[in-house]
């Protein structure tokens, strides 16, 4: 049986990790499987070089536009000789800075607002009423994050323009910052995270799982020993001397016990894996202090519902379902299949099989999960505005 991962309505804006997460989990007895069928596996190397969605444009190209709009804001005025005139008019420096920022915001609004309106209309047209409230909240939170990101970029651009000795230097510094933080630092973050906290290889992971299942989690409790101990326990519990005398099907009980032990082993290994991903995310968060694009990417992906946290809730729901189903089947065999011979269940069993239903967590949960990214974006915006203020205060004609 497969549990298929749903794709949220905001995936049109930010596909996030969708192509790399896998589409479905194969649910079977004995094994907790990872999600399979990553769409990216059926893509070319170019697909990975060039996945430009709306979010990609906002994260990469809007900052480039901001760089082009800001690099000459003060340095250009100085070179043209107009800075001296403006300052001599007694314009307060803070007003000067706010005016420049508003002018740039106006240009950005011309680009972003029509696209946002079209996106909102498309979302309204394609999402049902109950989903629309959540999608609306997620969109608003996402937009808030992008707002902070733009403030950070504009602030930094104006600060560099005010501090740099010439517009050429300002341009070089800002384009260098844009290219390095936009393209290089995220890759370094990913690589560094992997080196500091390596993800186990599939072969190591399954080798360790097999070891725990065969030898016991303490290494001294083999599968055979566990089976024998369980048999003695059941026989004693029912007050009989042989399993053949049990009023229940021992095979079904043994399956139940085996699944219980297997669940414990899988919980152990998957929780370690989740902890490893969390450690890696912390490395990304640290590097987001250097490159705000890492923070906005995490935030945007979380709001679109296509990040690891959402993926985790889906995988957990699928696993709960798998365990419930296994239990249902094994209990049926244990308590109804006591007669010798092949046991065939009737339709009533299948009517009791629940449907797999997965509810995507709400927007506030998603925001809470990635609050660190929002804090980082806020920190970046504040620091950039303060730097711009300091730069304008020390502005010399």
């Amino acid at each position, binding site marked *: 049986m497969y549990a298929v991962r749903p794709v949220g309505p905001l995936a049109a804006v930010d596909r996030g990790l969708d192509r790399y997460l896998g589409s479905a989990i194969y649910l079977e007895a004995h094994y907790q499987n*990872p999600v399979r069928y990553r769409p990216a596996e*059926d893509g070319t190397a*170019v697909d990975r070089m060039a996945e430009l969605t709306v979010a990609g444009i906002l994260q990469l190209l809007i900052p480039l536009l901001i760089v082009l709009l800001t690099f000459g804001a003060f340095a250009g005025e100085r070179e043209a000789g107009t800075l001296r005139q403006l300052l001599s008019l007694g314009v307060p420096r803070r007003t000067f800075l706010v005016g420049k920022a508003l002018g740039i915001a106006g240009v950005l609004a011309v680009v972003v607002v029509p696209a946002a309106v079209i996106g909102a209309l498309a979302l309204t047209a394609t999402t049902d009423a109950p989903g629309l409230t959540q999608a609306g909240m997620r969109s608003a939170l996402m937009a808030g994050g992008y707002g902070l990101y733009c403030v950070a970029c504009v602030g930094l651009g104006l600060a560099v323009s005010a501090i740099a000795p010439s517009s050429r230097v300002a341009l*070089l510094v800002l384009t260098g910052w844009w290219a390095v933080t936009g393209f290089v630092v995220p*890759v370094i973050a990913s690589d560094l*995270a992997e080196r500091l906290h390596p993800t186990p290889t599939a072969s190591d992971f399954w080798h360790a799982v097999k070891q725990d299942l065969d030898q016991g989690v303490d290494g001294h409790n083999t599968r055979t020993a566990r089976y024998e101990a369980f048999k003695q326990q059941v026989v004693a519990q029912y007050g009989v001397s042989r399993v053949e005398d049990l009023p229940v099907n021992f095979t079904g009980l043994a399956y139940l016990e085996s699944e219980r032990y297997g669940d414990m082993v899988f919980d152990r290994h998957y929780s370690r*894996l989740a902890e490893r991903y969390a450690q890696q995310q912390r490395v990304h968060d640290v590097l987001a202090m250097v490159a705000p694009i890492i923070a906005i990417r995490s935030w945007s992906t979380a709001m679109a519902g296509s990040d690891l946290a959402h*993926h985790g809730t889906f995988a957990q729901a699928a696993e709960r379902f798998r365990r419930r189903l296994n239990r249902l089947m094994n209990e049926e065999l244990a308590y109804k299949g006591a007669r010798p011979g092949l046991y065939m269940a009737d339709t009533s069993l299948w009517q009791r099989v629940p449907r797999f239903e997965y509810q995507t967590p709400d927007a506030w949960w998603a925001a809470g999960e990635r609050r660190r990214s929002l804090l980082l974006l806020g920190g970046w915006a504040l620091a950039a505005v303060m730097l711009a203020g300091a730069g304008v205060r020390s502005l010399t004609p």
Partner: protein
Amino acid sequence: MIGTSPSALRLARRIAAHEWRLFHRSGLAWIATGLLVCTMAYGVHGGLSMAARHRHSLEQVVQERRARLGSLAAASDGSASSGVRKAEAMDPWTVAYGGHVAALPSTRLASLSIGQSDLLPQMIGVSITNKQRVPEDRYGFENPVHLAVRRFDMSFAVIVLLPLVVITIAYDLLARDREDGTLLLVLSQPVSAGTLLLGKLTPRAVLLAGIPIAIVLATLVGRAPDVLLSGRELLLLCVWVMLVVGYMMFWLGAAALLNLRGSSSAAIVLQLVFLWVTVTLLVPVAIHVGASAATQAPSRLDAVNASRDQPFEYFQDGPWLAERWYARDPQLRPAIVDGRVPPPSFAASFFLVQEEMDQRASPIDAQIEAAVARKQRIVDGWRWISLAILLREALNDLAGTSLRRHLRYRAQVEAYRQRWREFFGPRLLRGAAMTRADYGAIPTFTMIDEPFDALLRRMLTSACALWALAGALAGGCALRLRD
């Protein structure tokens, strides 16, 4: 024009030496070059780590499989006590279901480009179960965040970082002198603009070409000296040098041409950054969008659905599914007992149902594989308009981490899967016991790579294209100088 007389060359050498001295004093140039050295060294190390990780995985799984088969083979004739019951070892189901792993071996130059190897499975399980539920295929723990961003390797350093460093140290080849007013002063001396440009370009070109070559050679000498003793790998390394130097020369040529056009240094930075964004992002986006639109394919889940559209009941469906095998090989048909053909065993029925499920999914699987191959062909056809794609594809090819190689591998695994079925199907249908000789005859998988000359030809074509573009820019510079 660039003078070619001995005196002009001598002058160019003196200018180059002067540039070198200026370079030493430039903080920005030092930072950019230092970053390039560090990132390239880090990139090669990343590639080596990834290659080692793959090797470790493959060796671990292959050794486990080999040990398991060895134990079963030993137990099958009771010649050795291997902890496996003889009945289990003689049952073909044990091996057929437990399956095998078809491994894609890393090439010896895999460290030069991680390519698609972090995303695409380097091992595919082969069993009598249908493809969707092969026990050995439970892969997929790589952090999706890292898959989306990609890993930092030498090819990333070359494709993305090298042009940025070229821009940093070559945007003001002549523009700064022009803005400072010193260019006119210099040109009023008996030195041509061409000689001046040559003198300025040479130390930069030597430095930028020397860094990646030195880092790769030093790494190979230190970590994999055997690579340098292999003629095939040495040849590939030469092509790698051609590719990297050609790519660097293109960016240097672009910077030189823009400088000769007389733009300001700020405008040159903008133009070069725009070119970089176009080459590394915008054109790949356009090709990606076009190729995706032209190759719509069903999803893998459609194949899963196709194989499970109609549920099977092993004991009912086993007999009619077995008829195909009986038709092909009448000797497999069991003798009539009590006036009827005995139904296949559960193990045989399971095998037959799984085979049927795969057959139902196979048209969709084939459509997907064909679409992926078509997409790759489109990328191959259009790679000429983006140097980044051209170089990425060539470097992945060279390192054996390309989708092209993986498609070849997947096709061979598919053929191997069929051989696996052909081997175990009759044994399961007959209920024949596995003997030691049978264990020795179990099909094995060996990846057969593309012929070397075809690979080499493709990479040389890419390298020549890069050099041709760099040459075209040099021609543009010459024309500009003549004017």
